[in-house]
C-alpha cells in the first residue's frame, strides 16, 4: 500500500471543513430565519469543498485525485451563488433577475464540471499533491466566479452608503471578512496557473466564515473598531512573544552558542517564558488604552451617569426627581429625547412622569397600559429592550409577538427601553430615543443605564413613600384639627350661645319697648324711624334663633343634644342649601334642575342639619363635575344637578340628588362613607368628612336612609329618605 502523504494543503482543507461544519451545527438552531438558512448553505458548500480538498490533497493516485477534485468543484460552483443570495437577503435587494441567473449558471457548470473541457487532467504540484489542470471553460468559470463575488460586494458597498450606524458596522465586518478570507482563498488558484506560491491562504477561508457568521448571527454586534483593535493587538503581541525568541534562536544561534555554550537554547527559552508571562498584561494594558481612546465619548457620559445614580437618592420630590433624570440622560448621553413612565398600580398602567426632547413640540404618549407588549416583555425578561434588535429579529423570524413589540416601541418613540426594578416590582420604565450621533447602544451603555434605572427605582420609591407620608401626615393633621374643633365645640358653643342669648334678649327688650310706645303720638318721620328700628331688631332676633340652631348643629358632631325638629319645607330647604353654594354654582356654570311638587308634604327634621346635608351633596356634585371637566375635556359638557323628590310612600319623602360628574369607581364605593375618604383632586378641596356626616345626620338624627349609586364617567345619584312631619 502506498503511504498516504498528508500535505499541508490537505490539512487546510480539513480545517476549513471542520470550521464550516461547526458553523452549520451552531446555525441549525437558528433555522427559522431565511438569512441564516442561506448562510448555512454557503457554509455547506465551503465544508463540502473543504472535505474533498482534504481527501484529494492526500491522494496519491492521480485518477482518484481527478475524481475527487471534480467532486470538490461542486462546492466551489455554489460558493458565490450562496454568497450573493446571502447578501441579497441581508441588503434586502429587490431585483431577483441576477439572483436567478447565478443559480442557472451554477447548474450549467454543474453539468459541465465532469467534462474534460473543464478540468482536463491533474498535475502534481509543489512535489506534494495533485491539483487541477485547467482547460478553456475553467478560465471562463473563474472569471464568472470572481464576477459574482465582486458584484456581491458591490451591492454590499451600495447598501453601506445608505445604512444606519448598526448596519454599517455589520457590513464592515463582512468587508473585513472578505479582505481576510477571499484574499486567502485566491491562493487556491496559484497552483492552477503555475504560480509558485503555496496555497497557505486556505486557512484564512475558515476565518472568513467565522467573521461573517459572527456578523450575521450577533444581534448586538460590537463595534468593528473594537474587534479590529483587539484582534490586531492580540496578533501583534503574540507574534512578538513567539516571534522574538524564534528569531533569536534561528538568527543568532551562533552568537548564543558562543555566549552560553552548549545549552544555548536556554536563552531563547527564558526570553519566551518572560515574554509569555508579560504578554497578557501588556495586551490588557494596551487594549484598555486603545479602547479608552476609541470610546472617550461613551466613557465620559457613562461616568456622569454613574455619578448621577448616586446623587438621585437625595431628592425627595418625585416630580423634581423624574424631571432631573430625563434631563441628565438626554443631555449627557446626547439623545433625541427621553421619557420616564411611573407605575400607577391603582389604575393599572404607567403614566408619563417626565420627558425631555431636543424638539420643542415633542408630544410623547402619556400612558403605557399594563397589558402592552413592552410591559409584558420587561416583566418577563427584566432586561433592557433595544429597538434595532427587535426589528432585526422580527424581520428574520416574522414572529408576531416581536412584531407587536416592535410596533409598540415605535409608537412610544423608543430606541431603548430600560426597566427600573426594586426587587420584583417594576417601579418605572425609562424610554430613550436615538443618540443624536446615530451611534448604537453598546453593551456598556446598557449596563450603565440599567444601573441608573435601578438606582432611579429606589429613589422613586423613596420619593413616593415620602409623598404618601406627607399626605397621610396632612390628613392626620386635619383629623386632629377636626377632633380639636370637636372638643372645642363644647366650650365654644356655650360661649357663642351666651352671646346669642344676650343679643336676643337685648333686641327683644327694645322691641318690647317699641311695641309699647309706638302707638303714642309722634311725628311721622319718628314713627317711620321707629318702624325701621323695629324691623331691624326683628331681623336680629331671627338671626339669633338661626344662630342658635347652627350651634346646636355643631354640637351634633360631638354628642347628641336635643333634636330641635320642626316642619321643614323641602323647596325652602333646597333654596337655603343652594344659597350656601351660590358662588361655586355660578363660577362652574352649573345647571340645577328641580323636579318636585312644591306642595310636597313637610319633612320632619332640623332645618340647619338638613341644610348641611344638602349643602354637602351639592358641594360633592360640584367637585365631581369639575373633576370631569378638568380630566375629560368633553365638548359641550353641561354640568347638571337634578334634584327630585316624591311622596311615594305615605310616611316618607324620597329625595334624589343626581349629578353628571365623573362618578366613583367600583373599588372606591365601599370606602365612601368612611371618614377622611376622598377622591377629590386635591385633598385641600375636601376633608372627606362630607358623606360621613350626611349619613350620621340623616340616619342617626332623622331616622332616615341614605343610598348611594354611582357609575364611573356617568355620574352619581344620592337617594335620601326622610320622614314626613305630621302636625
Amino acid at each position: 500500500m502506498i503511504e498516504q502523504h498528508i500535505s499541508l494543503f490537505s490539512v487546510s482543507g480539513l480545517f476549513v471543513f471542520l470550521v464550516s461544519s461547526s458553523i452549520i451545527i451552531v446555525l441549525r438552531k437558528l433555522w427559522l430565519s431565511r438569512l441564516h438558512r442561506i448562510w448555512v448553505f454557503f457554509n455547506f458548500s465551503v465544508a463540502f469543498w473543504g472535505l474533498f480538498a482534504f481527501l484529494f490533497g492526500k491522494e496519491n493516485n492521480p485518477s482518484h485525485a481527478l475524481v475527487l477534485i471534480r467532486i470538490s468543484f461542486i462546492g466551489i460552483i455554489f460558493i458565490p451563488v450562496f454568497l450573493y443570495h446571502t447578501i441579497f437577503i441581508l441588503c434586502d435587494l429587490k431585483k431577483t433577475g441576477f439572483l436567478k441567473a447565478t443559480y442557472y449558471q451554477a447548474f450549467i457548470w454543474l453539468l459541465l464540471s465532469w467534462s474534460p473541457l473543464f478540468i482536463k487532467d491533474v498535475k502534481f504540484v509543489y512535489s506534494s499533491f495533485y491539483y487541477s489542470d485547467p482547460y478553456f471553460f475553467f478560465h471562463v468559470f473563474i472569471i464568472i466566479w470572481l464576477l459574482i463575488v465582486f458584484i456581491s460586494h458591490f451591492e454590499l458597498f451600495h447598501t453601506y452608503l445608505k445604512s444606519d450606524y448598526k448596519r454599517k458596522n455589520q457590513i464592515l465586518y463582512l468587508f473585513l471578512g472578505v479582505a481576510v478570507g477571499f484574499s486567502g482563498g485566491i491562493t487556491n488558484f496559484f497552483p492552477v496557473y503555475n504560480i509558485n506560491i503555496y496555497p497557505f491562504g486556505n486557512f484564512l477561508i475558515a476565518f472568513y466564515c467565522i467573521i461573517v457568521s459572527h456578523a450575521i448571527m450577533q444581534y448586538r454586534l460590537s463595534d468593528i473598531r473594537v474587534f479590529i483593535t483587539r484582534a490586531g493587538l492580540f496578533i501583534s503581541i503574540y507574534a512578538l512573544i513567539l516571534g522574538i525568541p524564534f528569531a533569536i534562536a534561528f538568527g543568532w544561534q551562533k552568537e548564543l552558542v558562543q555566549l552560553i555554550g552548549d545549552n544555548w537554547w536556554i536563552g531563547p527559552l527564558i526570553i519566551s517564558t518572560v515574554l509569555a508571562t508579560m504578554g497578557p498584561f501588556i495586551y490588557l494594558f494596551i487594549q484598555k488604552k486603545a479602547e479608552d481612546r476609541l470610546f472617550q465619548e461613551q466613557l465620559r457620559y457613562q461616568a456622569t451617569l454613574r455619578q448621577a445614580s448616586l446623587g438621585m437618592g437625595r431628592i425627595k420630590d418625585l416630580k423634581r426627581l423624574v424631571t432631573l433624570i430625563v434631563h441628565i440622560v438626554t443631555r449627557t448621553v446626547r439623545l433625541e429625547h427621553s421619557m420616564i413612565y411611573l407605575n400607577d398600580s391603582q389604575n393599572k398602567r404607567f403614566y408619563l412622569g417626565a420627558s425631555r426632547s431636543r424638539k420643542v413640540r415633542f408630544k410623547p404618549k402619556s400612558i403605557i397600559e399594563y397589558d402592552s407588549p413592552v410591559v409584558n416583555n420587561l416583566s418577563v425578561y427584566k432586561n433592557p429592550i433595544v429597538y434595532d434588535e427587535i426589528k432585526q429579529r422580527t424581520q428574520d423570524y416574522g414572529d408576531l409577538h416581536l412584531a407587536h413589540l416592535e410596533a409598540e416601541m415605535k409608537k412610544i418613540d423608543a430606541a431603548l427601553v430600560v426597566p427600573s426594578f426594586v426587587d420584583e416590582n417594576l417601579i418605572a420604565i425609562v424610554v430613550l430615543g436615538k443618540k443624536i450621533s446615530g451611534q448604537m447602544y453598546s453593551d456598556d451603555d446598557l449596563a450603565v443605564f440599567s444601573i441608573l434605572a435601578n438606582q432611579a427605582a429606589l429613589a422613586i420609591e423613596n420619593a413616593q413613600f415620602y409623598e404618601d407620608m406627607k399626605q397621610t401626615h396632612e390628613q392626620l393633621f386635619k383629623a386632629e384639627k377636626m377632633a380639636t374643633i370637636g372638643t372645642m365645640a363644647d366650650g365654644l358653643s356655650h360661649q357663642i350661645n351666651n352671646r346669642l342669648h344676650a343679643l336676643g334678649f337685648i333686641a327683644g327688650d327694645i322691641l318690647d319697648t317699641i311695641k309699647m310706645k309706638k302707638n303714642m303720638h309722634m311725628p311721622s318721620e319718628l314713627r317711620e324711624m321707629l318702624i325701621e328700628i323695629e324691623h331691624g331688631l326683628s331681623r336680629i332676633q331671627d338671626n339669633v334663633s338661626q344662630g342658635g340652631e347652627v350651634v346646636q348643629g355643631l354640637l351634633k358632631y360631638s354628642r347628641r343634644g336635643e333634636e330641635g325638629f320642626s316642619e321643614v319645607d323641602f323647596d325652602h330647604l333646597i333654596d337655603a342649601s343652594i344659597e350656601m353654594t351660590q358662588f361655586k354654582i355660578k363660577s362652574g356654570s352649573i345647571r340645577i334642575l328641580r323636579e318636585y311638587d312644591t306642595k310636597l308634604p313637610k319633612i320632619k327634621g332640623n332645618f340647619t342639619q338638613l341644610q348641611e346635608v344638602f349643602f354637602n351633596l351639592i358641594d360633592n356634585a360640584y367637585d365631581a363635575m369639575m373633576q370631569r371637566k378638568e380630566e375629560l375635556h368633553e365638548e359641550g359638557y353641561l354640568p347638571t344637578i337634578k334634584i327630585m323628590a316624591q311622596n311615594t310612600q305615605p310616611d316618607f319623602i324620597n329625595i334624589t340628588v343626581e349629578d353628571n360628574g365623573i362618578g366613583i369607581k367600583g373599588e372606591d364605593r365601599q370606602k365612601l362613607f368612611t371618614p377622611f375618604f376622598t377622591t377629590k383632586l386635591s385633598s385641600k378641596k375636601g376633608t372627606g368628612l362630607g358623606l360621613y356626616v350626611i349619613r350620621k345626620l340623616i340616619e342617626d338624627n332623622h331616622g332616615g336612609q341614605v343610598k348611594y349609586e354611582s357609575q364611573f364617567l356617568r355620574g352619581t345619584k344620592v337617594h335620601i329618605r326622610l320622614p314626613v312631619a305630621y302636625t
Partner: protein
Amino acid sequence: MPKLLIVDDEIDIREFAKNFFKKRNIDVFTASGGQEAFEIIESEKPDLVLLDVRMEEMTGVELLKKVRDTGNNVKVAMVTGVEEEETVQEAENLGIIGYIHKPLVLEELEKIVLKELNNN
C-alpha cells in the same frame, strides 16, 4: 309688686331682662354670682328666681342646693344653654319649676314668668 331675681353672669342679660320686666311692673333684682344671689334671696325674698346653670364661682345647682338647704322653697327656673344629664337630674331633685333654654324667645320667657308670678 311681685319680685323677680335674675341670676346671670352676663351683664347684658341682667340689664335688659331687668328693663323688660320692669315695664311689666315687676320688681327686678339682679345678681352676677352665687354668693350675691344667695344674699338677695335671704334679704329680699323674691317670688321667682331665674337661675343660670353655668356660672363662675358657684354653679347654679350649687346655689340651688345651698338655698334649699336653708329650707327656702322659693320658685326657681333654671336657664341653660346645653342640657347635661346629671345637672337636670340634680336640679329636678332639688325642686325647680322647669327649664328654659338659651337662646330664648322673649315672649315665651314673659309668658312663663308672668304665669308663675301670678300664681302666687
